[in-house]
């Protein structure tokens, strides 16, 4: 087993314990850290998060982690954003006023539109299990070992809209809305749902993120 360093970004938001347990279940320890040198040394970085976008960015900036994450992304090593952590990867969000994000993936975060009188009514937040469908091939991505139509656990009121369709890896439909549920740009991945709360299908994402061949720009782990 190679000496694998998995860093979970600690910026005070999000239930990091279930992510740590999922990583542990797959046989790896992780560190929850805000230390720039720990993060830069990591082979994988997970950006968790629940709560409001503006609070999340303020916390990241306050600890200088926005610059660290930008620098880390440049190394080509894989990054996985979860829920709010996925939304923070984008350029801006309109949650509680317009806020800038990390801008690692071009796009914007907007509220899920309410059901119109002609729709079958649906509630916001979107809470529960929903399925994902391919937008582009899943080979060489975190979804490689998942089936189209697999179900995952979501909790959110906002959704990300990538500027470029090629960055949409999977979509999910809720009410009258179809949104990007998994985003992928080079070494950057993001899931709107919580893989750590999504049973075997979710664990398959972490397994792939940790051990999979995710394109060619980064060091592949699990060999030597």
């Amino acid at each position, binding site marked *: 087993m190679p000496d694998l360093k998995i860093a979970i970004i600690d910026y005070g938001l999000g*239930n990091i314990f279930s992510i740590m347990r999922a990583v542990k279940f797959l046989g790896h320890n992780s560190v929850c850290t805000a230390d720039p040198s720990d993060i830069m040394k990591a082979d994988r970085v997970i950006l968790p998060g629940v709560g409001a976008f503006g609070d999340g960015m303020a916390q990241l900036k306050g600890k200088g982690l926005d610059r660290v994450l930008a620098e880390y992304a440049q190394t080509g090593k894989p990054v996985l954003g979860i829920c709010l952590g996925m939304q923070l990867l984008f350029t801006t969000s309109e949650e509680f006023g317009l806020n800038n994000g990390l801008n690692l993936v071009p796009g914007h975060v907007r509220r899920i539109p309410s059901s119109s009188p002609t729709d079958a009514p649906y*509630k916001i937040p979107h809470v*529960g299990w*929903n399925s994902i469908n391919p937008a582009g091939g899943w080979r060489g991505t975190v979804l490689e070992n998942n089936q189209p139509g697999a179900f995952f*656990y979501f909790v959110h009121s906002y959704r990300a809209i990538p500027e470029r369709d090629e960055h949409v890896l999977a979509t999910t439909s809720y009410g009258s809305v179809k949104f990007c549920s998994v985003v992928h740009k080079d070494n950057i991945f993001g899931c709107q749902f919580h893989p750590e709360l999504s049973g*075997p299908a979710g664990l398959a994402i972490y397994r792939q993120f940790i051990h999979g061949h995710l394109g060619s720009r980064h060091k592949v782990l699990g060999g030597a």
Partner: protein
Amino acid sequence: MHSTRIIARLDIKGPNLVKGVHLEGLRVMGDPKLFAEGYYQDGVDEMIYMDTVASLYGRNSLTEFVNATAKSIFVPLTVGGGVRSLEDISNLLRAGADKVAINTAVIKNPELIREASKRFGAQCVVLSIEAKKMGDFKYECFTDNGRERTGVDVLEWCQRAEGLGAGEILLTSVDFEGTGMGYDIQLTRHVSDAVSIPVIASGGCGQSAHVAQAIVEGKADAVAMASVLHYGKLRDVVSTVVSQDFKEGNLNYLKDVSQGQALGRKNIAPLSISEIKEDLIRRGIPCRI
């Protein structure tokens, strides 16, 4: 495709999984770990662990159990019973809970909802309600397993709690709980129509048709059940359960089962998670399988 959540509710007293009627007359069903791990393997969408005696002792004693099961269970876990403070919530989240269900403490101090929601996120704050019907379309909140009146109206409380930042409502009908007579559809619909946060119907499930009814007629966003699943799981694990040595609780039922008494209870059909989901899918209700 959005699917309706099928939630297993485990009421736990000391070391045992228990089940009663109207939240009382608890009989020991077995080791809760055996049931929790079994439900996860069977494809349950979520689980609720309730410490049934926590209110009496003023604390939740499930931390160890949560910690032991969360290592290998990767669906949302809600833990309730005796949650009094931000510190209690923090301890349970650290142990492996994803959400906490709170009843008594927020009735006494509604601001706790706002504080918990701000600190941990609305998604982890579940308002737990034990409702009893007091008149036509009139329901009152109770605490302590349906024993103590609060004078608080269910509908008003749900709307207020939503405003304070509750993320979901676990709506248990004390009148129907454990009876197998079906969910309180009027109550469920009454609340679901009045709030935009998800409502989990709880109490009364005796067969899978009841689950469908809670979703279609009651407009429940998620459905919790206990007896049907526990008796269903006992089919698989009965030999293990009756061979175990229980230290406390009402063991008469397990003794009868070990002597060949049929599983189940009046009005309650033993069912597995997949039997329920297959039936819902046949009825055109999307489920995760």
